[in-house]
């Protein structure tokens, strides 16, 4: 398989770790070689979290070169635009949650908040496909990651990886009530 690069980004506390592990294990269940890495300096303190997954043949470092991601997943609108600007390749796909966790300067009134329109315009100009995941109906924020995973599965965004593979990945990572709840969200967004 040709190399396929996934750049995942968001804010500390959004559950990027589980999302990234579910994707990595899903890819592995599909029989595709993969390597991943998280970058989360002070993520727990509301900083940026980045996770990168690279799979296929001829893939070595877990780090993706700039503008070479086939797929960017953004858990938050500012980070979605930042991630896409830095990493998405021409003609790649951006999937993002329509959620805003305002950075400090926005809250201090020094810079404007990034809007849905900004992201859509940016994608249009750079020839990227944008998929917006709307989650206003969800009451547990900590499962927003499963909505994003559902969108990846539904749109078959990773070649050769399907819902059964992500199902198996979730079984590796979760059990009991947590598995049930996360799976319910995943299922709802995967169809």
């Amino acid at each position, binding site marked *: 398989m040709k*190399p396929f690069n996934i750049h995942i980004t968001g804010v500390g*506390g959004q559950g990027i770790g589980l999302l990234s*592990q579910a994707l*990595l*294990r899903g890819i*592995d269940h599909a029989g595709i*070689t*993969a*390597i*991943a*890495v*998280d*970058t989360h*300096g*002070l*993520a*727990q*303190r*509301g*900083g*940026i979290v980045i996770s990168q997954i690279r799979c296929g043949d*001829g*893939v*070595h*470092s*877990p*780090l993706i*070169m*700039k*503008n070479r991601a086939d797929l960017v997943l953004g858990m938050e609108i*500012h*980070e979605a*635009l930042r991630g896409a*600007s830095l990493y998405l*390749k*021409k003609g790649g796909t951006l999937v993002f949650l329509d*959620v805003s*966790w*305002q*950075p*400090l*300067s*926005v*809250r*201090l*009134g020094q*810079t404007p*908040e*990034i809007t849905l329109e*900004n992201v859509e*315009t*940016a994608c249009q100009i*750079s020839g*990227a496909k944008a998929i917006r995941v709307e989650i206003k109906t969800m009451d547990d*924020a900590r499962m*927003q990651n499963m909505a994003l995973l559902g969108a990846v599965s539904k749109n078959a965004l990773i070649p050769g990886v399907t819902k059964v593979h992500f199902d198996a990945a979730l*079984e590796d*990572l*979760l*059990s009991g009530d947590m598995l049930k709840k996360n799976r319910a969200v995943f299922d709802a967004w995967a169809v």
Partner: protein
Amino acid sequence: MKKTGEVLMGKDPFEEIFMGNEAVVRAMIETGTKVIASYPGSPTPEIAAAILSIPEDQRPFYFEFSVNEKVATEVAFGAALNGNLSCAFFKSVGLNVALDSFVQLSLMNITGGMVVVLGDDPGANSSQNEQDNRNVYRMSRVTVLEPSSPKEAYEYYKHAAALAIKEQTVVVVRLTTHVCHARQKIKFSAYENPAPSRTNFSRANGPYIALTVMALDMKRKSIQKLKRAGQYIRQAGLNTEIKSNNSRNKGIITSGLTFLSLLDVFELSSYRPDILKLGAVNPLDPEVILAFLHSHKEILILEELDDILELQIKALAYDHGVKTKVIGKTEDEDFVGEYTPDKTRDKLSAVWPDMVIPSPASPALLFPVPPRPAQMCPGCGHRSAFFAIKKALEKEDVTVADIGCHTLGYMPPYEIGEVLLCMGASTGIASGLSLFNDKKRVVAFLGDSTFFHAGLPGLINTLFNHHNITLILMENGTTAMTGHQDHAGSVIPVENLLKGLGVESILSCDTYSQSKLTELVKTSMAVKGISVVIAKHPCMLKYSRQKRKQPGFVQTHVDIDPEICNQTHDCVERFGCPTFTRKPDGSVTTNLDLCIGDGSCRQTCPEKAIVFGKEAK
């Protein structure tokens, strides 16, 4: 669900996706590592997390969080003198703390063998610098293995353990951030039975007292040990040559994760130089390197951070009259930052412009995205503390920060903490700043874990030398920044310790009592000599995670009552909890994904517009 602890303890060979830090723990188990000690610090805390995922009664080894990295090194060393294979692990700058003991290790006959796993942080992702600890290894005369991937981290730890046992010495496994945190599928070997615990220290195995003439004899022995380590490295084939069929007589010497960056650049190259990948970065193997130099016309030494390999290899080439062109670092920027695939490509393009195929033009950044600096969590006791303390400070007062979550107080809107060096340095710096200083009052900050780690000598110095400072101890009951590890404060209450030291002015309150804290800080700062304010509140990230797991838990939150709010904006601009969201029309709402319903913000609103949500009533 695959439970990490159970998988790690599996008896049969298995394949699993593991992080570099987790893979190292399996290697510890397989090699019979018996005593492990650490002080938490990124990029290595997941080693401890993986260890703690094994229930204590099932662990085939003893593990402790020591009070700092130096003590961890000493505990591991002591245990190894009893004949146990031991390990200490910590972060890059932790070696500075451990150094006084660490530099002695190669002089010692460590009967059980000792491995030190060190996580360097190129790029300073979560450290105060990106120091290259390879600078220290020559002085310390230790063998250093450097894996490039999680799979190699597992394999190299096993080599390090075997060599440490064979030579009764210390061996370092040098990890870097993105090796620690990378994940891949790894094939693991079988694990037999736990190693026996040994207590057979004998001074006959020594000498262990490196004084006067003995120190020189012990140094001579350590030189011999390092030479024999070189033989082990060669026999184990840790330095490998990767030959290309279109090298154009060029070669690259590299190591660690930079090796993988190089392979990615090769995927975009018109030709591929041969590679000499060094699995051991100390000691270097002169024969292997000379052979590689002789067989190429041009050699690039591709190394992250400092020019450690370059200087040694150039010296070797000079001594042997090698005519090969040796290229190393040429620009200042070559010394800075991680050698990501991007940076590696740029370096190669500069050295051999015909080699790398130019990368496609990057799409323009259409909208500037505001930066997202780290900040204190919703409900953090430190936020209440800084909000309250700011009211007690005069403009000219000097505030000195220390390492920990409270370092983030330097950011707006608090801007408290104007100087920072390293763990435990605040009281010493503050003491120096207080000399000849009658006008500006000096306030030092210190977290509770850091207080035990390296803060005590500085505090004792203020007493001994009668310095005039106020120390604010930010007590949250845990080592929060690195993931809530326990510290000595759970058995030694900080207040008792301060009293025992003879600190006369100790004031204390919960940081959520903001006006009281303001008053206490004012009172304390009026005291001549050392005065301490203990500003306590449990880490709310840890607390709210525990709460959430309890049956019947209901998540509460606060709302802003738009009828009462008159847009003073103290909540967003002065208290600065990330929960508050500012709308373009100036109105403020709460982000329900973030709010933990602690209500510490309510006292900050002059109009009392912050109210508890309906579920809290």
